[in-house]
């Protein structure tokens, strides 16, 4: 029985459950799901629907973080992808032609892959620290997105495109299926092929991985490409949901929320083991938190303070030094070598 506490999903799931429970008491109709015109409506459905882009970005981010990296540019890629798709559609004579929608989606996805590859090349071949390498696109990407939209909010009137983010399939929002598909692909790729093993291995010990014959650069490149792809699809969902693209605000702070979701999900920022399902739960926690705060009528921006404490708490729990400080409280003398916890003898 005691084992259940040790499972990596235990804490994220408990937090999510606690949040939901709180909502149940606070507003009993939180869990009510109603049916209108063949669509399901309700707070839970909303959480899934509005949380979809974040879950996607966080899935991509998980793999990047697992290689001891970080991708700050996802928010910008979200904006660029949505912008280019809406621009392509808005140029069309008839915005409901299926071919046009497909073309625009393909262009957006292709561009996201390219941007992901750009990040990946800077990190792997260029040997630039991930934070710094992806900072470039984080800054420039916002500008590119605004360039694409011309600084305006591009509105499209395409029912087919809107379906992506706000349509529903089998009574559920279509975006949920997109997320599920990406999650399943990511799970298959990482758990049914050796890719997951290689990612964890490279993130945990790059030089030992190289010595074992793993192409570390290839692995790193591919996770950034995948992360770009996820951000691109998230951008499509987001822009399709509101049938418009806003280069300035779309995907703002997504990088931070995604990193937070990854960390809550149990993946360490020091690389190594990663938990895709944990990340999904992490993203759901963030989304539920936002919804909850909306519901109880506190200004939604206060979520930020809560997030700050969550980030800090999770990182402190992961920090060895944090525990070491408590352990060595009563040690009066501090030897630098011993404080570092170096125990090798040579």
């Amino acid at each position, binding site marked *: 029985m005691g084992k259940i506490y040790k499972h990596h999903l235990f804490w994220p799931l408990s937090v999510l459950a606690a949040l939901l429970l709180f909502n149940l008491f606070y507003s009993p109709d939180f869990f009510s799901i109603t049916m209108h015109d063949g669509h399901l409506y309700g707070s839970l459905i909303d959480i899934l629907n509005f949380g979809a882009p974040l879950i996607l970005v966080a899935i991509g981010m998980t793999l990047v973080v697992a290689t001891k990296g*970080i991708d700050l540019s996802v928010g910008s890629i979200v904006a660029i992808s949505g912008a280019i798709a809406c621009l392509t559609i808005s140029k069309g004579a008839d915005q409901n032609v299926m071919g046009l929608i497909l073309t625009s989606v393909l262009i957006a996805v292709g561009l996201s892959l390219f941007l992901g590859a750009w990040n990946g090349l800077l990190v792997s071949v*260029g*040997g*630039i*620290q991930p*934070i*710094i*390498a992806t*900072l*470039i*696109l*984080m*800054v*420039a*990407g*916002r*500008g*590119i*997105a*605004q*360039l694409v939209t*011309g*600084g305006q909010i591009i509105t499209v009137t395409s029912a087919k495109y809107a379906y992506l983010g706000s349509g529903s399939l089998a009574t559920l929002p279509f975006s949920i299926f997109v997320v599920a598909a990406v999650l399943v692909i990511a799970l298959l790729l990482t758990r049914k092929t050796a890719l997951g093993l290689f990612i964890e291995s490279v993130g945990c010990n790059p030089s030992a991985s190289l010595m074992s014959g793993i192409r570390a650069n290839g692995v790193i490149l591919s996770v950034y490409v995948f992360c770009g792809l996820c951000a691109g699809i998230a951008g499509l969902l987001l822009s399709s949901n509101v049938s418009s693209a806003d*280069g300035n605000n779309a995907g*703002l702070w997504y990088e*931070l929320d995604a*990193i937070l979701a990854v960390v809550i999900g149990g993946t360490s*920022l020091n690389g190594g083991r990663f938990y895709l399902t944990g990340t999904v739960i992490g993203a759901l926690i963030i989304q539920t938190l936002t919804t909850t705060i909306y519901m109880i009528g506190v*200004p939604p*921006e*206060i*979520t*930020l*303070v*809560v*997030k*700050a*404490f969550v*980030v*800090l708490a999770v*990182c*402190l729990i992961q*920090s*060895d*030094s*944090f525990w070491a*400080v408590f352990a060595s409280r009563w040690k009066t003398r501090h030897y*630098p070598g011993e404080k570092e916890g170096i125990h090798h003898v040579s």
Partner: protein
Amino acid sequence: MSLNRKYIPIVVTILLFIIMFVAGSFRYTGFFSLQVLMNLLIDNAFLLITAVGMSFVILSGGIDLSVGSMIALSTMVSASLVQQHGWPPVVVIPLVLLMGAAFGSGMGAIIHYFKIQPFIVTLAGMFMARGLCYVISIDTITIDNSFYTAVAQTKITLPGGSFISISAIIALIVAAVAIYTAHYTRFGRNVYALGGSEQSSLLMGLPVARTKIMVYTLSGLCSALAGVVFTFYMLSGYGLHAVGFELDTIAAVVIGGTLLTGGVGYVLGTFFGVLIQGVIQTIISFEGTLSSWWTKIVIGLLLFIFILLQRVLSARGSSLKR
């Protein structure tokens, strides 16, 4: 004598600024004037102050993402205390500065003692400060206190007919003090040493803990001061002030020739990095047809070039060692 290699990035920065300014002068009438130059300082005073603090953080090998939120919090606290509670500015301003310093030192202590990446700790700081703004108020608080409006409207006329604002003068003083501190004090040199190698600094007996915490304290103080200056500039407190400002600040420092991995760079470079950002904005506004987002794209491009330049320079440096 060939150019000393350690000066290459800063020389590139200064040349870049001069070229941009000259190019702007040739292209647009009315560009080449002392007032345009002064306006660069007036409009970017708070950026300069924040970037100076950030320079120390980056030189020490860290990063501070909380600066933008700290500015917003400072404007919010100032506005709230002055406007809603009627406190005198003489009390409020030192209090805000103290708050910034305390906030920074708290983050510094967590970074140092718990060994958590500065990125994460200051990210939490960023959320926290931004969130606290909304705890105070969700709306803009406009300031009509006579002291603030007086400072905001004061123009100091310079010989030659151009003028400068009090904020710009504060920024210049901050930059000058910072240049002196970085170059001529033990604290400044310890920051460089820390950025060069924390391990070595420890073994050379330098006060690593104190230096690291001081650096974040300084950055917190600078962003609070920038917040005060920003309050003069906007005459309001608002939780959405200076959103994304940490990126502008980091970009200014990097374009100023400071290595993001720490240890190499000059505060003077940061000064020119800020001016370059200002010139880009000025050119774009003079151009008229160009839109503001080109600023971001150009800055991103410059970031890329400088990071690449530093990468190449440091690669050659290490190959020399072999």
